């Protein structure tokens, strides 16, 4: 059977059940799939993590690289976030330069971290105007069963929480020696919701994403801040739907934060 037809049927099923407030895998509408976090999956990375969110699986790794600061913020380092949708993760992904989907994922995860101010970029300054840390967070999708936003968000944060800062001598990194851990002041969690019919599903599976008319992601902190929003897909939300998503996000993010 044609791949697209198969997904159409799955989406139909999702839509049918949604009318009865039900999901194919019998989760509650605001319920997350099982999360498994494995830390330090790469010794070459300064910090790394593998995250399984149901059948979705991703990895993230951090490399701390010496660089020069931007002229307009001479006493600040920065972060740089990249995502690759590996072709082994889905028949839909291809070899090649990052597609808009991958760029959006990277940028939303980036904003969730950056705007939460969990990292003080001044901590990443080594010598004002000359040497700063650039914290590269590279993320790879190994298996796509939906909600890559949240899986990648958790992986990036988990990798950062493990990140050791290399020792620096004479402006060069001393391989294998570390000067301490990266300091994070918050744990921002990205929570994504799919609008299916007029229902809101937390942590959508791939089949639910095929059925969704709109998507909303919100990054929240343990001290009750909203840090970032991203609305996607060609449908809309009412203002109160957005507020419902935010309420659910604050609740579910608390649970996820415990597992970090």
């Amino acid at each position, binding site marked *: 059977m044609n791949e697209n037809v198969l997904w159409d049927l799955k989406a139909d099923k999702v839509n049918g059940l949604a009318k009865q407030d039900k999901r194919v895998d019998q989760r509650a509408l605001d319920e997350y799939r099982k999360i498994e976090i494995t830390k330090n999956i790469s010794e070459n990375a300064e910090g790394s993590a593998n995250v399984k969110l149901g059948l979705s699986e991703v990895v993230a790794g951090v490399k701390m690289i010496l660089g020069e600061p*931007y002229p307009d913020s001479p006493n600040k380092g920065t972060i740089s976030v990249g995502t690759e949708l590996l072709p082994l993760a889905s028949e839909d992904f291809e070899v090649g330069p990052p597609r808009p*989907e991958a760029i959006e994922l990277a940028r939303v995860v980036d904003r969730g971290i950056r705007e939460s101010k969990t990292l003080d970029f001044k901590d990443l300054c080594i010598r004002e105007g000359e040497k700063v840390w650039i914290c590269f967070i590279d993320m790879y999708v190994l298996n796509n069963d939906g909600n890559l936003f949240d899986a990648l968000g958790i992986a990036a944060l988990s990798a950062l929480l493990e990140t050791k800062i290399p020792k620096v001598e004479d402006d060069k990194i001393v391989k294998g020696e570390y000067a301490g851990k990266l300091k994070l002041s918050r744990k921002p969690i990205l929570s994504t919701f799919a609008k299916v019919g007029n229902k809101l599903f937390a942590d959508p599976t791939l089949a639910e994403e095929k059925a969704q008319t709109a998507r909303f992601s919100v990054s929240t902190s343990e001290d009750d801040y*909203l840090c970032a929003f991203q609305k996607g*897909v*060609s449908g809309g939300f009412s*203002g109160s739907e957005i*507020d419902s998503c935010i309420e659910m996000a604050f609740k579910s993010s608390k649970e996820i934060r415990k597992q970090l």
Partner: protein
Amino acid sequence: MASKKDEKIEYVKNGKRLDGRKVDELRPLKIEVGVLDNADGSAYLEWGQNKVIAGVFGPKEALPKHTQDPYKARVKFIYRMACFSVPDRKNPRPARREIEISKVCSEALERAVFIERFPNSSIDVFVEILDSNAGSRAAALTAASVALADAGIPMRDLVASTGVGKAGGEIILDLNKAEEDAPDAVDIPIAIMPRTEEIVLLQMDGLMTKAEWKKAKELGIKGCKQVYEVQREALRKKYEAAEKPEAKKNPEAEKPKAEEKKTAAKKSEKVSK
């Protein structure tokens, strides 16, 4: 990336912002419709310092073939900044920021356009930012939506967009660059279809409480509706001008209406099969 300014700035003082605006006041907004000759629809927009031009082509056959959807048209939205439109020269290659904005704006417009009437088609919307100062994506989306209407593309409603957010603890509409550089700045680009208030674009950067968000949401929707009035007025002017033929720039160049094009597209599909 910009360095945050001294924290002691008061961003709202006696009800006035640094540039003299009230908290719920947009920067001056001006839209001109039908400014390009070759495009099927177009608009030029000035919004504060932002200057934006939008052109629309389509609906036409989506190419390459594998991008065609038998159930609907795609809206291809391309947002680009001129190299000289920013304080430091922008590299001419599309930045990841431009690609992301193009994606979310495409999705916002697909909600408004009756895409299901144009199977296998593409509606191409190109926006070039000629000058910028905070809020260029709202400017781009607002201009694009007017250009779509100018092209005769059938739509549920116009999409009206604005920025809203926080600076110096105050919830304010349509932040300018100085306000976006506040140490506690929050920027929320939002776009709605004003008739239903359905939110079709929503992004946010920065730290804000739920209470602040609720206030910002109200203000943002209110701002979009002001934008909507300017959009409608601009389209009204164009139609009035169209009734006085001497005002037309190029009377010879009759453009086929989108609905007629649709039929043409269907015919050419048959031929190409």
